C-alpha cells in the first residue's frame, strides 16, 4: 500500500519534478556557456540555493493533497483499507524523494565541475559567520519548508494559498528563531557562540517541522474532512501547543546542552605551579596534584584573548552585549580558586563615569 501510494504521487507530480530538473539543466548550460561571467554565475548560484530549492520544496509540499481535494477523491482514498498515517507518510516520502533527486543532480554538478563548487561554497545563512564548505543551509531550509507546506496542505484545496501560508509561517518562525539567537532573548548566542547557535537553529528547524508534521498527521487521522472549519480548528488545536513545545525544546537545548567543544583555548599564565586557561565557556584551572580541571568562572560572553593571573588573583574580560552595535567590555577579578568574583570595570563603572566627565568637560 505504501508503495502504491508512493508511486502514484510520483506519477502525479512528475511535471513539477521535471520542471525543477529543467531549471537545473538550464543553470548547468549557463555555466558551460558563460565561463567568464563569474559575477553572474555567482548570483545564479545564490538564486538557485536561496530561491529555487526552497520554492520547489514549497510547490511540491503545498500541492501534496491537491489531487485528493480535486473531485472529492478524499472519499475514494479514505474508503480504501489503508491507514491514514500511511497515506501521509507515503506521500511525504514521495515528495521528499523528489526533492532529494533534485539535490542529487545539484550535487553531481557540484562535484563534477570544480568551478561550480567554488561558487557554491560560501556563507548562505545571513547573520551567522559560518563558512560552509557545502550549501547545507539551503538543503535544510528546503526540507523544512517542504515539511511545513505539506503539513498545511491537508487544510485547503488551493495549493497557491497553502504555498503563501507556508511561506509566511515557515519563514516567519525561521526568522523569529534567528532574531532570538541574535538578541538578548537568546543570550546573543549567534555572536558569542556561533557554533552552538547554528546547532540550536538546526534543532529549532527539526522540532518545528516535527510539530507541523505531527499536527498534520493527527488532523488526517482524527478529523472530519467534510467539515472544513472543524478540521482547521482541529489542526490548530494540535499545532499551536506542539509549535510552542518545539520552541521551548529549542530554548531548553540552548540552555542545557553544551555547545561544541572548546574551539579556542587561551593560556593566561600560571600561579602556584597551576596553569590557567580561558575558553569560550569561561576560566579554567588545571590542578596537576589532583589531576583535574576546575571551572573557576562561567561565562558565555568571555573575551578569551584578554586575561592574566598574578598574586593569587585572576583577571579576565567579558562582553556586555545589548545589541550588535552596542557592545561594552567588562573587567572581572576573582581569587585564584574562583571565589570572590567581582566586576571592577564596565558599564556604569569608574571608567565609564570618568569618560562621561571628560566628555562633559
Amino acid at each position, binding site marked *: 500500500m505504501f508503495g502504491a501510494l508512493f508511486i*502514484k504521487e510520483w506519477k502525479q507530480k512528475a511535471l513539477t519534478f521535471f520542471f525543477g530538473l529543467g531549471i537545473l539543466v538550464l543553470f548547468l548550460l549557463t555555466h558551460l556557456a558563460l565561463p567568464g561571467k563569474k559575477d553572474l554565475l555567482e548570483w545564479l548560484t545564490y538564486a538557485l540555493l536561496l530561491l529555487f530549492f526552497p520554492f520547489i520544496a514549497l510547490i511540491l509540499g503545498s500541492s501534496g493533497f491537491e489531487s485528493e481535494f*480535486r473531485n*472529492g477523491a478524499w*472519499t475514494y482514498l479514505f*474508503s480504501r*483499507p*489503508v491507514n491514514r498515517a500511511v497515506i501521509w507518510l507515503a506521500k511525504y516520502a514521495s515528495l521528499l524523494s523528489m526533492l532529494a533527486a533534485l539535490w542529487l543532480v545539484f550535487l553531481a554538478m557540484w562535484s563534477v565541475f570544480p568551478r561550480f563548487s567554488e561558487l557554491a561554497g560560501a556563507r548562505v545563512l545571513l547573520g551567522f559567520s559560518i563558512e560552509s564548505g557545502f550549501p547545507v543551509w539551503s538543503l535544510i531550509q528546503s526540507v523544512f519548508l517542504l515539511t511545513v507546506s505539506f503539513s498545511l496542505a491537508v487544510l485547503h484545496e488551493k495549493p497557491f494559498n497553502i504555498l503563501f501560508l507556508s511561506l509566511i509561517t515557515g519563514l516567519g518562525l525561521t526568522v523569529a528563531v534567528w532574531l532570538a539567537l541574535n538578541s538578548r532573548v537568546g543570550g546573543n548566542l549567534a555572536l558569542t557562540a556561533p557554533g552552538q547557535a547554528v546547532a540550536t537553529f538546526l534543532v529549532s528547524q527539526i522540532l518545528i517541522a516535527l510539530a507541523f508534521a505531527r499536527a498534520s498527521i493527527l488532523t488526517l487521522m*482524527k478529523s472530519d*474532512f*467534510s467539515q472544513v472549519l472543524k478540521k482547521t480548528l482541529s489542526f490548530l488545536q494540535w499545532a499551536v501547543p506542539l509549535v510552542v513545545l518545539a520552541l521551548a525544546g529549542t530554548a531548553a537545548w540552548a540552555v542545557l546542552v553544551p555547545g561544541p567543544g572548546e574551539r579556542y583555548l587561551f593560556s593566561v599564565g600560571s600561579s602556584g605551579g597551576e596553569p590557567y586557561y580561558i575558553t569560550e565557556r569561561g576560566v579554567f584551572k588545571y590542578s596537576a596534584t589532583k589531576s583535574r580541571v576546575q571551572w573557576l568562572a562561567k561565562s558565555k560572553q568571555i573575551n578569551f584573548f584578554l586575561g592574566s593571573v598574578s598574586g593569587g588573583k585572576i583577571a579576565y574580560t567579558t562582553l556586555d552585549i545589548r545589541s550588535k552595535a552596542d557592545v561594552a567590555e567588562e573587567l572581572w577579578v576573582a581569587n585564584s580558586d574562583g571565589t570572590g568574583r567581582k566586576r571592577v570595570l564596565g558599564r556604569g563603572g569608574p571608567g565609564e563615569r570618568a569618560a562621561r566627565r571628560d566628555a562633559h568637560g
Partner: protein
Amino acid sequence: MSELLRIERLSKSFGRHRVLRDFDLGIESGRVYGLLGRNGEGKTTLARILMGVIPADAGGIYYRGRKIAFRDSAYKREFGYIPEDPFFYEEMTVQGSMDFNARFYPRWDRKRAAADLERFALDSKARIRTFSRGMKLKLELAMALAASPEFLILDDPTSGLDVPTRRDFLRDIIRELAASGTTILFATHLVHELERIVERLLILHGGRLVLDEDFDKVKAQTRMNLEDIFVSFVSKD
C-alpha cells in the same frame, strides 16, 4: 444467520444540524438490506461513517463482534462501497486505477475485474477524466466487485446509470452477489429500484430508523406497495 454488523447509538451532526441521533441497526450476513430515506436524512452520512470516511460524534460500530475505531482500516478489505458520486483520481487510466486498487485488497479478483470491464464496455486504456458519470459508476462497480467484498454498501448509485445497465445491475449483479453470500446495504430514495431486490426494509427518518422489518412481512401486513409504505412512514409528523 449470524450478525455481521451492529451499530449502536450512532450520532452525527453537521454544525447545528443533527443528521443521525442514537441510530441503532443490526445487519445479518447474506441478506439484502434496503435503506430508504428522503434526501438529507443521513443515508450518505451513515455509509461514510461505516466506510471510515468521516467520524461519528458518538456511538459504536461492531463488525463480526469487534468494535471498529475510526482509525481502523483492515476491516475495509472486506467492505465494498459504491457512492452516489463516483470519486477517482481522474488523471489515471482505467487499468491504472484497477492496478492501484488491487494493491489494497488481498482478495482482488483480476479475472473478474477484466470480465466486468468488458461487460460494461469500458476501455482499460481510457483516462477516467474522459468518462461520463454513468461510465464512472460502472467502473466503480467493477472495482467493488473485483475486491470480492463480504459487505457491499451501495449509496444510491443507480440514478446515474442508463436503463439497460440499471436493469443489468439490479437484476443480475445484486442477485448474483446475494446468492454468493455477500451482504448488501442498498441506500436509496428511489423506491422502484429497491422493490425488486430488497429482503429487509429499513426506513430512516429524523435521524433514526422508523422501520426495520422483513419486506415481505411489511407488504403482507400493510397490503401496500413500497412507495406507499415509505410515504406513510416519512410523512407521519
